[in-house]
């Protein structure tokens, strides 16, 4: 079938690093000693690790070949739900590599590093403007650490009110990091079932919220790609019981310039700069999970916090109410610079446009696939749409099979089997940077695969076949862990 991106071609095998090389080979130039050699005290001296010795060309070929086994946003469409795999602009990489920034040491006095402090200050202002929240910290290294920061702020707030609460409400649609982060600071997660429309009922929250409960963690838009339309009413209930509302902002890409978070009754929210703000995921990280808070929670933000006084910037270290540090320095700074560059490049109008187009793309896919795939929650969606493999069960074809077959056709599969409320979930988030032709081609490909599911399901069961390796045995890996070569 000629109209799919995926095909197969020549790529290289490559052994593990220590299966190559020869003792004494050089990969790096080390300066000649211009000072006398001083021996390390013998009792402390070790033998040094058993690393292979490789030449520069060995290293270059090794990683060049490895890279050919990978698929990134630059390779093709990556509609991984909840991950906002939008295009990562090249100029952001250049800006993050600005020599004066790359060389900046994090422990020098403020007067020497005004430039890097300015970026932090301005980025805080921008994120506040985008969310409508009055204060922010950039320290959290990723979304989950943002959540932890938020939960610690919840705890600090309640302590400041002389109470220690033990539970937290978490909708059943929540990402696993939410309960995990809550648990980390001792909260017992209490699941809240979302209603038939896939959103929170005011009633079910009211039924569970009490004075032992610190508050609620709401992902909005939620992981079904739906806007929690009762969010304000929910917030009122929680607030009425002295609780706080946490917003998981991982899905902010749907609502920039459209929703004012502070108006939704959210008290704390993290953003994922490596999603909404176009910083690359790097095959797993680093990310950045800044946290925005309402005025009354500002004093609990991590230290140090950057301030602007006249034209100078300084780090404010002493804030007795602060929850303290969550990072050794200022967070994943290089990631912050990328997001800062993105926001400056986009401006207000284009950020809003990005959200509108992200939502348009998702709804377009939802419309085009609703006949072929089961749509558990038939609602106008935000940035992503969630289907299931229900219709394919009779064909003995699963979500996993569909996902693997997509690989053969040159697409990264959507997020699968999440959210948990949808058995066999297929969670598609195209993002705004995919153009119509590419989305149409993706839709065609899914339909083609669903045809194959009827005519020749084996094609799906045995997929992928075009990749260097076929389907991998994850069970074996877990049964006999081999984690170190």
């Amino acid at each position: 079938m000629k109209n799919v991106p995926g095909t197969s071609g020549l790529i290289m095998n490559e052994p593990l690093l220590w299966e190559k090389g020869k003792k004494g080979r050089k990969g790096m130039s080390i300066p000649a000693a211009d000072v006398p050699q001083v021996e390390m005290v013998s009792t402390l001296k070790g033998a040094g690790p058993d690393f292979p010795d490789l030449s520069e060309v060995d290293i270059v070929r090794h990683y060049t070949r490895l890279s050919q086994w990978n698929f990134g946003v630059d390779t093709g469409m990556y509609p991984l739900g909840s991950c906002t795999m939008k295009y990562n602009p090249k100029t952001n990489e250049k800006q993050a590599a600005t020599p004066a920034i790359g060389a900046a040491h994090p422990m020098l006095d403020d007067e020497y590093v005004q430039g890097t402090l300015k970026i932090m200050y301005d980025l805080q202002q921008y994120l506040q403007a985008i969310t409508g929240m009055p204060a922010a910290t950039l320290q959290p290294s990723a979304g989950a650490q943002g959540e932890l920061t938020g939960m610690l702020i919840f705890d600090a707030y309640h302590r400041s009110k002389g109470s220690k609460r033990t539970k937290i409400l978490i909708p059943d649609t929540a990402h696993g990091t939410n309960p995990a982060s809550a648990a980390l600071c001792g909260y017992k997660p209490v699941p809240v079932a979302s209603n038939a429309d896939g959103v929170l009922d005011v009633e079910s929250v009211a039924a569970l919220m009490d004075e032992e409960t610190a508050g609620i963690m709401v992902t909005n838009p939620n992981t079904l790609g739906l806007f929690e339309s009762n969010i304000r009413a929910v917030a009122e209930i929680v607030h009425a019981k002295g609780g706080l509302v946490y917003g998981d902002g991982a899905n902010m890409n749907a609502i920039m310039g459209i929703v004012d978070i502070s108006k939704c009754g959210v008290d704390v929210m993290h953003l994922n700069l490596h999603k909404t703000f176009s910083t690359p995921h790097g095959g797993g990280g680093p990310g950045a999970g800044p946290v925005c808070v309402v005025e009354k929670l500002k004093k609990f933000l991590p230290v140090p916090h950057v301030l602007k006084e006249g034209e100078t910037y300084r780090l404010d270290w002493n804030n007795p109410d602060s929850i303290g540090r969550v990072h050794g320095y200022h967070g994943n700074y290089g990631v912050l610079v990328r997001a800062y560059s993105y926001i400056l490049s986009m401006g207000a109008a284009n950020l809003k446009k990005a959200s509108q187009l992200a939502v348009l793309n998702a709804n377009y896919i939802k419309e085009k696939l609703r006949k072929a795939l089961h749509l558990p929650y038939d609602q106008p969606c935000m940035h992503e749409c969630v289907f299931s493999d229900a219709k394919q069960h009779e064909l003995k074809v699963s979500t996993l099979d569909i996902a693997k077959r997509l690989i053969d056709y040159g697409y990264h599969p959507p997020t699968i089997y999440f959210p948990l409320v949808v058995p066999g979930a297929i969670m598609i988030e195209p993002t705004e940077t995919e153009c119509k032709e590419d989305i149409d081609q993706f839709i065609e490909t899914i339909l083609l695969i669903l045809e194959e599911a009827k005519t020749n399901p084996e094609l799906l069961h045995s997929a992928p076949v075009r990749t260097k390796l076929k389907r991998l045995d994850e069970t074996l890996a877990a049964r006999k862990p081999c984690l170190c070569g």
Partner: protein
Amino acid sequence: MRYLPHTQEEIAEMLAEVGKESLNDLFSTIPDDCRMEGDIDLPPSMTEWELDAHMAQIGASMRVTPQHKVLVGAGSYHHYIPEMIRALASRSEFLTAYTPYQPEMAQGTLQGIYEYQTLTARLLGMDVANASIYDGGAALAEALLMGLRINKKCKKVAVSKGIHPHHRQVVRTYLQATDFEIVELPLGEDGRTDLASLAEYSDLAAVALQSPNFLGVIEDLQAAGEKIHETGALFVTSFTEPLAFGLLKNPGECGADIVCGEGQSMGLARSFGGPGLGMFACKDKFTRNMPGRLVGETVDKDGKRGFVLTLATREQHIRREKATSNICSNQGICAMMAGMFMATLGGTGLRELAQLNHSKAEYLKSELRKAGAEIVFDSPTFNEFLVRFPSDFKPVYKQLFDNGIVAGIEVGRYYPQYKGCYLFCATETVGKGDIDAVVQEVRR
């Protein structure tokens, strides 16, 4: 806008398909009282060239320049990074991929991380290393939480005052909400952790030392390990300068159960403190208590060797609140770069580079001593050490800064007892000439 591909016609066609009049109509499910009034308050959008100029200006506003010789470590080190590593790490197949949830199209990341795990385990002398934790601070917090999980009955952990003060703060933050207790172990006159007080505690889940510690002193890990194990606690060691293990006994040899630390030294720019790399390793028997992702070897349908994320049952997306940690995104590409850096150095190069760092620091040390400065601790150090000057050093510092040298950092904020003392670091990037210039200024 060049990142937004949709033309007006395309938008119109797509709206028609979804049966909406306008882009605004797509948001009908959003209550009016949740909506933003007016536009986001942001500066006007910049062209690529305006952004270049803007960032160049910010760069120029930094008083510390890339040309400055920075004789400061304190957890962030200036080491040379081969251009090759920048070139390889920026391969977009690595950089623009997500976490390798679909192993068949992520073998590059997976093998690369498996290699990182392996080289890390070898460097630290441990059985298993994970795919990374955010940074040295979070890694230490996770290590102590892991200790508390393993020694369930104990609710207390001890951390040496020799550990990077920021990392200790992160530990405090992570543990504050729960009822775990943290005791701090003082430093002795020799700059090493004083373990005398250990005896007082019977209920320690884990005891953490950093070596070389924040003040540069190499701890006697072997001795400490024995003492700590006597109390039944797990022995956690941390670090901020992994290069030291090119020359020193590794933590594994010294009996560490869990080893964690900041890996920025391994091929990452200082970049104002991040992104860094939380390196994390432990003994086999603790693997299932480990936080963070793990890449493991397996085979594909045809029996070919391949790699996958494994033991996910420890993780939040499966275990949710019972997970060993909440970490999801980690430091991915930074771990890859550290792997590249370790591979580039090789065993021979790592040894040579570590020795060179030590020699440079020792030369600075001896020259400063000759110049009348006091080296606060006579315990062995690697590439960092604490100095007390006979008279106020501030003016000298300022003069040197203007001459393009950053002469250490004052540690009073963290160690009142050492107020006025400066922590110096000399890596391979510091020339004899730079050192002599410092000493000459000190002599003035």
